[in-house]
């Protein structure tokens, strides 16, 4: 039954991505970019979800792989002629090779996975806050290297002249591919082992789950999806700087995942698309937006203020995320199922209530101070 509900969740996620793409394809060229950005955000958040959502370990480092994807895809698609001229310091291998955009997506995903594989090998032994800080260190190191090492990138300058080839449909294709990969992983045996370790690390180890290995696999897969997201991003914008794939993107994508509900694919979809579109709309409102009869014009910086307040408020009202970490389900399907089970047609389904609510960081949850006590004492 839970597999069926997950399929519903995948279908619903793809449908929502499709709706966003359709609306975007009908919009004006400027507005269209916002919808493309939303679809790319979804791709990156699926990448985050594969590791953070399934393992329950927070990582601040996944945007490193977005950066690696963006710079590798960008550098390998700039024609060699101008590349020699604009970036004379590059390694000759990078400077002399140029590939098609399609191949650059594969390179980006491959490099993302490879670096994640290498970085994850020592790091996946950590959990809790130590894991959070260690992955943050990965982000800082990546940023520092890209910013300073002109043999492998543009350094502090802007990487430009990248072919702009990602429109609405390409972004949709990327996001759908990422959603399918995330779905296949979470419903596979390996994905389930990791989700078991999220719920109870001790019990899952006791039944023979190698938690470190399962986390490592998810981390590498996440690296591939994040690399793909970075490639989409660079081919949407045509140019990129190191600062665009650093702290702010890390916080924003993490917020998308948690606000949507980090335990489910459906939550990742809703959070990514919702927050990304809201962010774009608010930024546009800084240069006047028309809402039916009004035209609103916000002062500079106000969009971030409103976004921050909305994000905090959403967490206050739905601490488990908008979806509560549950997968998408059609209410009427449940009703149908209940009726049939009552009639005795399908008795095996009765006890199953879907997946339990996920709790991130179960090992930290143990020491969570106010759990339970608060409600009892407050009453």
């Amino acid at each position: 039954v839970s597999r069926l509900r997950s399929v519903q969740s995948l279908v619903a996620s793809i449908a929502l991505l499709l709706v966003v793409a359709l609306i975007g394809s009908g919009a004006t060229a400027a507005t269209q970019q916002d919808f493309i950005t939303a679809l790319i955000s979804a791709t990156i958040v699926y990448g985050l979800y594969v590791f953070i959502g399934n393992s329950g370990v927070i990582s601040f480092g996944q945007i490193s792989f977005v950066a690696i994807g963006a710079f590798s895809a960008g550098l390998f698609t700039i024609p060699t002629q101008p590349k020699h001229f604009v970036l004379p310091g590059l390694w000759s291998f990078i400077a002399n090779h140029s590939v098609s955009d399609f191949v650059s997506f594969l390179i980006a995903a491959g490099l993302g996975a490879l670096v994640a594989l290498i970085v994850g090998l020592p790091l996946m032994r950590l959990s809790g806050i130590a894991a959070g800080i260690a992955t943050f260190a990965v982000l800082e190191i990546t940023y520092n290297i890209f910013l300073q090492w002109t043999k492998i990138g543009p350094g502090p300058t802007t990487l430009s002249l990248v072919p702009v080839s990602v429109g609405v449909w390409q972004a949709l294709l990327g996001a759908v591919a990422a959603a399918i990969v995330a779905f296949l992983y979470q419903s596979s045996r390996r994905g389930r082992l990791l989700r078991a370790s999220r719920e109870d690390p001790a019990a899952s180890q006791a039944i023979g789950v190698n938690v470190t290995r399962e986390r490592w696999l998810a981390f590498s897969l996440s690296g591939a999806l994040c690399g793909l997201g970075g490639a989409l991003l660079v081919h949407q914008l045509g140019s990129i700087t190191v600062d665009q794939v650093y702290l702010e993107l890390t916080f924003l994508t993490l917020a998308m995942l948690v606000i949507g509900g980090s335990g489910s694919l459906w939550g990742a979809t809703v959070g990514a698309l919702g927050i990304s579109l809201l962010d774009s709309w608010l930024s546009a409102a800084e240069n006047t937006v028309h809402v039916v009869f009004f035209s609103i014009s916000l002062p500079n910086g106000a969009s971030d203020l409103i976004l921050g307040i909305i994000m905090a408020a959403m967490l206050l009202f739905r601490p488990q995320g908008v979806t509560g970490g549950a997968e998408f389900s059609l209410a009427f399907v449940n009703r149908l199922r209940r009726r049939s089970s009552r009639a005795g047609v399908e008795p095996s389904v009765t006890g199953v209530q879907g997946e339990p609510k996920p709790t991130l960081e179960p090992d930290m949850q143990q020491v969570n101070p106010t759990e339970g006590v608060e409600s009892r004492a407050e009453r």
Partner: protein
Amino acid sequence: MNVGQTIIDGLALGALYALVAVGLALVFGVLRLINFAQGELITAGAYALSLTSGWPVVAQIVLCFVVCVGLSVAIERIAFRPLRGAAPATTLVATFAVAFALEAVWLIAFGANGKPADPLSTLNTIAIRGSLNLRWITIVEVAAGLVLLGGTALILGRTSIGLQMRAAATDFRTARLLGVRTNLVISFAFVIAGVMAAVVALLYTVQTPLVTQTFGLDITIIALVGAVVGGLDRLWTATAGGFAIGFATAVLNDVLPASQEKFQTAFVFLLVIILLLLRPGGLFSGFGRTTVERV
């Protein structure tokens, strides 16, 4: 290259980071919450100093303390109290969201160019001249660090509220059942965090007199990294970690030649990863304690 001078500079910066780490560790102790908004308190205090630049210095300092403590308690009341007991990821993102919103407030109110603030700039003069130059600010920073840390230790060790805080940090549920007043204890932790932020704002403006939106965020993140490397679950290990990272940054700054300075951040964070892998429970945590994840 003067080794003594390097060490003196390192002590001063280390003391500053240690104060930030104390605020983070106190809040973490009672709430298990990593408070990224702590940096915004420092920024708020620094802006308060810059806006009151014509005032008498004492009034400026008082206002700085009022702003930091008030904002600290207000954030706890509005944003964090309703989230008690939520998953750590949720509270963490909530502190991001608060920091994100406050940074936008600073941008709207004060612009992107930064504001000057240097109420204590007289401290930037040299107190003892000789083979080693000792500036007043260095003396004040180290002294303030020692006094505040000692004061915090006294409060935690010798007062009723301190006892309640320690009880809450050890086992929140049991402490509550035994009659520890939760809201009071948590508010008090945020008051101390606010005081620490105010002191950091005062002292840090001497060395960095231009206040921008990310004035406090940067040092808070570095101090947090230090505190976790040291061991966030105990006050003195977190403080020592914060001090160590401040000291290491200052020393590396002096020691590395300009040509190699560009990869300094990468080296510091590589060291952070190695230390975390070797001692995930904290560098200064007792050797008898288990450092492996409890299963």
